[in-house]
């Protein structure tokens, strides 16, 4: 197994040695934590004015993750740049000439980036939870409450899966502009619209981000999603697996 470990080390060097890594991951963490803190502070201030329904489904843990929707966009940029940086520069040909077995390169690159995303995602998730709960004051949840630890760990996993999904899409599309042009509007707007418009709601609930976000909830929202937190996470995993398979097959077949 000497070759895969070398390739992993090489990919680690690659990912460390470009500035975009620090920037994108830093922005992802910052936006997620800061926006979560802001919303938490606002909710605490306005809690008494919430409708009875909103009070009933009030989920302090999920409130502190309110920044995830925006923060994940920076994770998407990170994922796309890790992959398409090689294609856009032509570095991929140098890399593939050195690692003729494309599966090894593909796996190593995704593993390194996914582990990094996991580390950053987990840190972000715990930090966002801690900050959010502090700001929520008397409405806060504790890590020991039932389901809370799962939701916080889930926040880190969600960030990781979004990154892996983006990387797989970037492997398919190769161009950074095209990949970002597809992924950003989709996760920022389209999936939210599809999940909230009455006609498409049933279908929208099965989109990767909509399904995956359920793992960050402790109190189910009133939507009556046909799956639980882990069920939703499983659906997201299926999406990611499908994207990875497609990306791998294309990489294997295509001329570099």
């Amino acid at each position: 197994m000497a070759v895969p470990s070398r390739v992993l080390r090489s990919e680690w060097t690659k990912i460390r040695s470009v500035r975009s890594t620090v920037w994108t991951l830093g922005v992802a963490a910052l936006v997620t934590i800061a926006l979560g803190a802001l919303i938490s502070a606002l909710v605490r201030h306005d809690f008494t004015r919430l409708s009875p329904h909103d009070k009933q489904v009030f989920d302090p843990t999920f409130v502190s993750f309110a920044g995830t929707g925006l923060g994940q966009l920076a994770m998407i940029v990170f994922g796309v740049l890790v992959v398409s940086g090689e294609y856009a520069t032509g570095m991929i040909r140098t890399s593939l000439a050195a690692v003729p077995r494309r599966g090894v390169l593909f796996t190593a690159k995704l593993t390194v980036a996914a582990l990094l995303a996991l580390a950053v995602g987990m840190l972000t998730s715990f930090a966002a939870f801690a900050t959010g709960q502090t700001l929520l004051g008397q409405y806060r949840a504790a890590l020991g409450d039932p389901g809370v630890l799962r939701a916080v760990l889930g926040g880190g996993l969600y960030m990781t899966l979004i990154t892996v999904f983006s990387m797989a899409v970037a492997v398919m599309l190769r161009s950074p502009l095209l990949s970002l042009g597809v992924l950003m509007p989709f996760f920022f707007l389209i999936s939210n619209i599809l999940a909230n418009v009455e006609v498409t709601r049933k279908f929208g609930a099965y989109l990767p981000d909509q399904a995956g976000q359920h793992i960050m909830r402790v109190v189910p929202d009133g939507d009556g999603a046909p799956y639980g937190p882990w069920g939703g996470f499983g659906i997201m995993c299926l999406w990611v697996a499908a994207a990875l398979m497609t990306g791998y097959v294309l990489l294997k077949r295509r001329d570099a």
Partner: protein
Amino acid sequence: MIEAVGLTKRYGAKTAVYNLSFQVRPGAVTGFLGPNGSGKSTTMRMILGLDEPTAGQVTVGGYPFRRLPNAPRQVGALLDAKAVHGGRSARQHLMCLAQLSGIPARRVDEVLGVVGLQSVAGKRSKGFSLGMGQRLGIAAALLGDPQVLLFDEPVNGLDPEGILWVRNLMKQLASEGRTVFVSSHLMSEMALTADHLIVIGRGQLLADMSVRDFISYNSADFARVRTPEGEPEQREKLTSALSEAGGQVLPEQDGALRVTGLPLPRISDLAHGADVRLWELSPHQASLEEAYMRMTSGAVDYRSTADQRAGLMEPAPGMPPQGGAYGYAPGAPGQPMGPGGFPPGTVLPGYAEPPAAPQGHAPAPYGQSQGHAPAAAPAAPPAAPPAAPAAPPASAPDMTKRDSEDAR
């Protein structure tokens, strides 16, 4: 050792490489020549397993590249000097490549020294010039100390010092028993660097021979013979005398004759026998560049043409197009064209009298091109005879073809 057998690559309807078979042997620099778009880079990519051949196969040391054990230690390649992530420093770029093949970090600094980039090793490669990029690419190819090296146009963008360095590096690598395969579109460069040549055009093999053979086949000695200016009948006489004696006679652009197959003293004797005076009889050697151009002339995809600047000209009714190729400008009426005014190749051996006898023009020996052009072109009246400019282009392509056939 690189071996290609029936290598073919199609991109949709376009065939980039067709039925290419060759061997690249160790211990020599093999030059890979061809015009732009002839399939050199595609072939290189197929050797490296980056592109899958449509048909045929290519192996390195007996293995298809993708199944080669520890490929980076066996094959080093420079494909594209700009194929580097611009945000990464030169050292980091080489470091991640070194780690891929388990090469110690020490080696990275070694190769940086070899290519002379130590001073900018920590700089981001975004700011590198093309020449620095080539050096970085060569460093990457040398990293694994491989037995097989591929370089795609390594001297592009290098300064003269760099070109000399690459030339010596290739030779040195080959002398160490390595297989060195270098692509270029410059014959002159390959003549200095390579031991063996593989020439392709439009994706097909045109030549596979040693440089020495290429030189002896293609740059045969020839003699330049010039008969007195303004006496075409003398030239005709000499042409037929030389042809009868077994020589091959080709007219040159400036009105001289290029004679192959006869030694100089014999040409002199024949001229004396035919009672023809000579103004010039000199030994010459065709350049390799010329031979290469002849070889690939049928296989050039992107050919430049004279810039007519038609879109920039104010339309003048009846004016013949200006800015044509040298020698195509029509003469003023009543003023015949000088000998230098004939376009390349209009005067064929055995051809009838030239269109206009050159009496009215006072020819200055060896100076025709300056003498006629300013006089003829601006003086051209609106109603220039249309036949004069139309005729020469028709015969010109004929001539080039004949030229290449005769020379082989």
